């Protein structure tokens, strides 16, 4: 279950980002410390029930990613709060924390621990990960020697081996060649279909229609519309 109550996120934009003490002092003395406020999200409230698949749509810059980051705990909202029940797996990016000097095996443990898996879980799932990524004999090679397809396959396999209570997905992650793409898509759909609560961001309305129960339409940091998938998607299509 996810409960988002009245979440707002304010960014402060200085026109040239001040990163050194000198720049700060100069700007301060010149009284040129002009800040501009920018509300990426304003007063967002909604609830997602257990087992529901909630889609989020909106144009670029509507605040979708910011919202996902706040729910996954990466960002702290300026106002409001988020309540979650259950372990949460945000799939915002693949292969976070990969170290190119380490072998595939070492990276499975490193990346897995970053994603919050326990040691016992990873050891149990290790063979499954390697098998799914189709990497068997390359697993003890430093990943800087991997092809980009191999890297993505490895990253995808580690990220999707979980059994989360809450899953947060930023676009369906279909990677690799055609065969792997359909395999990974099937895996994603399986993950999202298995009774888990899902928050799903996508620009692909067909996918949204396919799997979501409800949809939120974000526009310029506010909820423009929320409701049944069909209704919201139709309205969104008309608008754009």
């Amino acid at each position, binding site marked *: 279950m996810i409960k988002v109550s009245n979440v707002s996120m304010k960014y402060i934009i200085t026109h040239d980002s001040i990163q050194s003490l000198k720049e700060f002092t100069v700007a301060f003395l010149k009284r040129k410390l002009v800040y501009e406020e920018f509300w990426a999200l304003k007063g967002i409230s909604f609830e997602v029930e257990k087992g529901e698949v909630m889609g989020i749509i909106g144009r670029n810059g509507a605040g979708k990613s910011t919202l996902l980051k706040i729910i996954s705990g*990466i960002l702290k909202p300026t106002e409001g709060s988020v309540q979650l029940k259950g372990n949460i797996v945000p799939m*915002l990016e693949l292969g976070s*924390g990969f*170290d190119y000097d380490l072998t595939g095996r070492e990276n499975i443990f490193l990346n897995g621990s970053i994603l919050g898996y326990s040691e016992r879980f990873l050891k149990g799932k290790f063979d499954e990960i390697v098998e799914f990524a189709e990497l068997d004999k390359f697993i003890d090679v430093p990943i800087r020697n991997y092809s980009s397809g191999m890297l993505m396959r490895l990253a995808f396999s580690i990220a999707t081996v979980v059994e989360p209570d809450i899953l947060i997905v930023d676009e369906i992650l279909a990677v690799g060649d055609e065969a792997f793409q359909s395999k990974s898509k099937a895996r994603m759909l399986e993950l999202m279909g298995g009774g888990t609560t899902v928050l799903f961001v996508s620009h692909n309305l067909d996918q949204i229609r396919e799997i979501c129960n409800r949809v939120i339409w974000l526009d310029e940091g506010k909820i423009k519309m929320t409701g049944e998938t069909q209704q919201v998607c139709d309205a969104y299509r008309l608008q754009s």
Partner: protein
Amino acid sequence: MAGCGCQVPGRDRRKAKHMREKRITLVHGCVIFIILYIILSVGLYFIAGEEFRCKRVQDSTSCETDVPAGELTKGLILEQVFEAQTDIIDSISIKFATYARQNSGTVCVQIFSDEELLMEKILDVSGFTDNSFVTIQCEEPITNVKGETLRIIVFSETGTPGNSVTLWLSKHQARPDQKLLLNGAAVDGTLCYAIEGRDVLLQGKDYFAAAAVLGILMCLYCLRIIHCEKTGKKCIGLSVILAFRKYGFLLKQLVSRDFKTKYKRSVLGVLWSFLNPLLTMTVQYIVFSTIFKTDIPNFAVYLLIGIVFFNFFSESTNMGLMAIVGNASLITKVYIPKYIFPVSRVLSSSINLLISMVPMLIVVMITSTRITKAILLLPFSIACTIVFCIGMSFILSSAMVYFRDTQFLWSVVSMLWMYATPIFYPETILPQRLMPLFKMNPLYHFIRFSREIIIAGASPEPKAYLFCIIASVVPFLAGVFVFKKTQDKFVLKI
């Protein structure tokens, strides 16, 4: 984000079982912790009990050795009256002169308190060297004498003119309680003597009482943690344990990554952890033992201890400095408690510290420094240093997020810090009035502590432990405070 989202009954049961397992391990952990505490506190008493009970004190007169007392022939009795300055007297040293010739016979040295004979020793004068102290060890330490008026009596049964030794006297009467008598008549001056003694600081039972009180407090806290876990209440201890349980694996992975990648693609690999301090020491040893002469005894070991500790400080803070900025891609993409980054950086360089202890111990053995049981105290100063460095890394890494100048500023500050710490110079050359300032330097305490246990081979006085703990915990808490205040803004700034 804690709690359980239970969906199917099967899952419920599994979780319940899991919870039960967890509680058992927590209770086990508490029991192990208490047992460890008992072992450590008893062990500490055996290693350092002597130094805890008493403090070594030297009571000596200013030996300017102005005049000899005249030949110590039969019938001449020298009597030095003084007030004992120490609780316990272990030995007494008297400066004899032999007139640059070989003498034979004996000299008798006695110590009296009123009419009670406390010590008597008959010395063979044939072994004396001219103008040097002869140390007389008390067979049984003379105890409980502080403030009492004692008399040292020196006479010879065999001395004849031409075949006798003499004692040096200082013309100055150093203290009002000192009086010199020659055959019962008061004369000017003071006998040239030094007393090695100890002051009683703490009784054995005091130590154990304090340890027991602390132990009971810990037991109570353990009970509280267990209780909190049962009822689901929050307390600091429990959240620390849970965080360790949850993120311990991640921490392990990050530490091993840092360590594995550090020497990857270098030919000698981990060997550099040995070589680095050894080579630095060799260079500095050559510079400071030939070009700038120092008179520090056992200079190689003295220097190496300083270098090993300071290198660790500088390496871990430099790595900790970049901990947040360098992991920006992770912090903006995944939720991980941010404190884990500085901590993992410091811990991975402390593996280096432990490895560089090996060449240090080798040098200790080569220079034939006596290794005593006090070396078991080394983990204490290492742990204090690590805690201190974690605190520093917290402060530096969060400062780095806001101002990228921090890294350049820090390289200057750490150089200054190196010169402000007695690494290659003796602490005696520091100006006396600036001493309080130098004692503010936490590294000074850690390095001094380690030198004391390795070079002197004995535990430092209890005060040194206290200083080390303060010097590590205060910066650590300051770091935690700063980090906690600023961490929510990190994502926006990196």
